[in-house]
């Protein structure tokens, strides 16, 4: 790649990259001024794989959580425009509308196409980010896994997404055993439950409940293993007001240790109340095909049905050996910074301040000591929720992406794209998204 220094580089090729690219384009940058280095040219590919693995059909995000440059129209309004019906708007007013996954992906594709995401994208797995100075001024060198320089950029946003999938306790060890690995799956991985089989689903979050339902729908038996005694019914990942200035301002007054305490509390498993799911689970309970226990798996070994597991119950005692076909872990992702290779190398090279296993980012999501106003290095996504509590939701990604883009615009001394030009860009994306959504089949709502 040439010696030229891009104004902005984005490391990663998922939702965070797309939203940041969109914000940069909307505010005034051209596609040729932005380089996106990721291993997937399609910005929705990773999410689509996870959604497919979960069997997820709708998002629990509110209708504002979309990819258009500005916050209106919402998915409910686009549904009205595309399908000529009021039901989604009515649901949105009463806060029971869940945007459909196909609609979201269609909108993301429309925005990516019309903002020139593909022109900015280069396929590359970035392995290391190194601060550079010299004639080119302050910038970052972006190196691939083989150590080759792939691009230089004055401002860099790290948007690598989640760390590796987490397998708690003995399941992590068992997963590394070739004889058992195929029977211990993650909720986000592709998988199939067989009729008549018996499965343990670990985890009490929405992904866990989703897997209970998937097991029951397959005609199998489900042992739900809940690790927290009482899930709440908060419909979003964090209390609603933590999504906005009111909450984020208050959150930022805390020190990092306090923020982690809050995250540990509010990011515990949540189970939205959904009529269809609850009926299915209740029916499973009546028929004896569904039981829920609170505890931890203490032993996993091969058995005649596939696996034999033992569960230590929270109330004391154990279940005794349970013969199951497999274990599905709805236990999320490893949130430690060092679990992501590029961050591990960054920690080794620059020794940034840490809070527990995570890099203690500055209040503007900057990575100390490398971040500076004239050459920003910032982070987005789950690794930034130490600053923005909902950092890994679409709304949180947008919060960070827009502010990072505005910082870069100011640092580069650029003017904002004129109002009419950016409004035209916005409505071109909207028009295309509506047309694409119109061509999609309708997705049933959950409640």
């Amino acid at each position, binding site marked *: 790649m040439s010696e030229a220094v891009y104004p902005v580089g984005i490391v990663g090729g998922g939702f965070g990259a797309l939203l940041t690219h969109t914000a940069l384009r*909307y*505010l005034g940058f051209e596609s040729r001024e932005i380089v996106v280095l990721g291993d997937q040219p399609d910005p929705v590919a990773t999410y689509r794989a996870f959604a497919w693995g979960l069997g997820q059909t709708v998002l629990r995000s509110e209708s*504002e959580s979309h990819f258009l*440059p*500005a*916050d*209106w*129209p919402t998915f409910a309004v686009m549904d009205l425009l595309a399908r000529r019906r009021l039901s989604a708007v009515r649901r*949105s*007013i*009463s*806060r029971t509308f869940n945007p459909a996954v196909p609609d979201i992906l269609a909108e993301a594709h429309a925005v990516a196409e019309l903002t020139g995401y593909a022109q900015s994208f280069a396929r590359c797995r970035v392995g290391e980010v190194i601060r550079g100075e010299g004639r080119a001024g302050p910038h970052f060198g972006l190196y691939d896994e083989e150590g080759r320089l792939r691009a230089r950029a004055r401002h860099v946003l790290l948007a690598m997404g989640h760390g590796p999938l987490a397998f708690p306790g003995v399941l992590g060890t068992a997963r590394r055993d070739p004889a058992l690995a195929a029977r211990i799956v993650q909720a986000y991985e592709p998988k199939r439950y067989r009729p008549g089989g018996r499965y343990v689903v670990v985890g009490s979050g929405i992904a866990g409940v989703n897997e209970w339902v998937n097991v029951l729908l397959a005609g199998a038996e489900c042992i739900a293993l809940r690790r927290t005694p*009482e899930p*709440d*019914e*908060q419909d979003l990942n*964090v*209390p*609603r*007001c*933590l*999504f*906005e*200035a*009111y*909450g*984020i*301002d*208050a*959150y*930022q*007054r*805390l020190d990092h*240790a*306090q923020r982690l*305490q*809050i995250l540990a*509390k*509010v990011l515990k498993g949540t189970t939205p109340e959904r009529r269809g799911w609850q009926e299915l689970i209740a029916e499973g309970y009546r028929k004896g095909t569904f039981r829920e226990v609170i505890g931890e798996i203490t032993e996993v070994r091969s058995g005649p049905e596939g696996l034999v597991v033992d569960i230590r119950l929270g109330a004391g005692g154990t279940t005794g050996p349970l013969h199951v076909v497999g274990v599905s872990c709805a236990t999320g992702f490893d949130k430690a910074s060092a679990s992501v290779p590029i961050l591990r190398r960054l920690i080794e090279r620059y020794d940034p301040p840490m809070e527990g296993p995570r890099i203690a980012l500055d*209040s*503007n*999501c900057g990575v100390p000591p490398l971040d500076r106003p004239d050459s920003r290095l910032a982070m987005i996504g789950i690794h930034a929720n130490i600053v923005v509590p909902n950092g890994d939701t679409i*709304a949180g990604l*947008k*919060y960070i992406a*827009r*502010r990072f*883009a*505005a*910082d870069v615009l100011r640092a580069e001394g650029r003017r904002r794209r004129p*109002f009419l030009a*950016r*409004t035209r860009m*916005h409505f071109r994306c909207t028009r295309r998204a509506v047309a694409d959504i119109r061509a999609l089949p309708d997705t049933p709502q959950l409640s």
Partner: protein
Amino acid sequence: MCPTLLGRLQTRVVILILPAILAALLSLVTGNAEWVALVGLYLVMGAVLDAALYAPIISWQPPWLTLVLGVGEYVLLMVLALLLGFGVPFWAATVFYWFVWITAQSVRIGLLPLLFLTRLEDGGELRAVRWTVPAPLRQLPVLATPGEVLPDRLSGAWARPSMMGRVPLPPPSEAGEVPADIRELVRRAEPPSA
């Protein structure tokens, strides 16, 4: 949305600009200044409600509540107009109110997000696109120099006789203390105890 008081006030003023212009035109055409006065009364009444009622008791405002508040404000405005002796017929005032309300809400929902990119994220406040950053650290006004000595007041006996026999003050440590507003947010997220 969880609007702040500033967000409520800024939004109310901005979304009533277009209706106020239309009301002024209507007043000019009809020669009746009460139309524009009605918008002014609506603005003042709304600002008082925002400051005295809505901001203290409503933290998260779902869309349906906006509609309910609109109905409440309609009733209140009609009563106020009656008490203040406005001469606009009731039916005309009703049509006018809902025209103003729908126009204002259309501006809020459709136009403000284009003008102020992060308004929804910023509690309704019309901020520039910026981070929330804690106040920067400031240098201390005085710093110790080598050879600094304590004044008599501080270098005397530590145990003060006047404090003897009294209940000791609470310990100073508030390590891990979480501010009340954050505790309140977390409390709301918790399920009601059985």
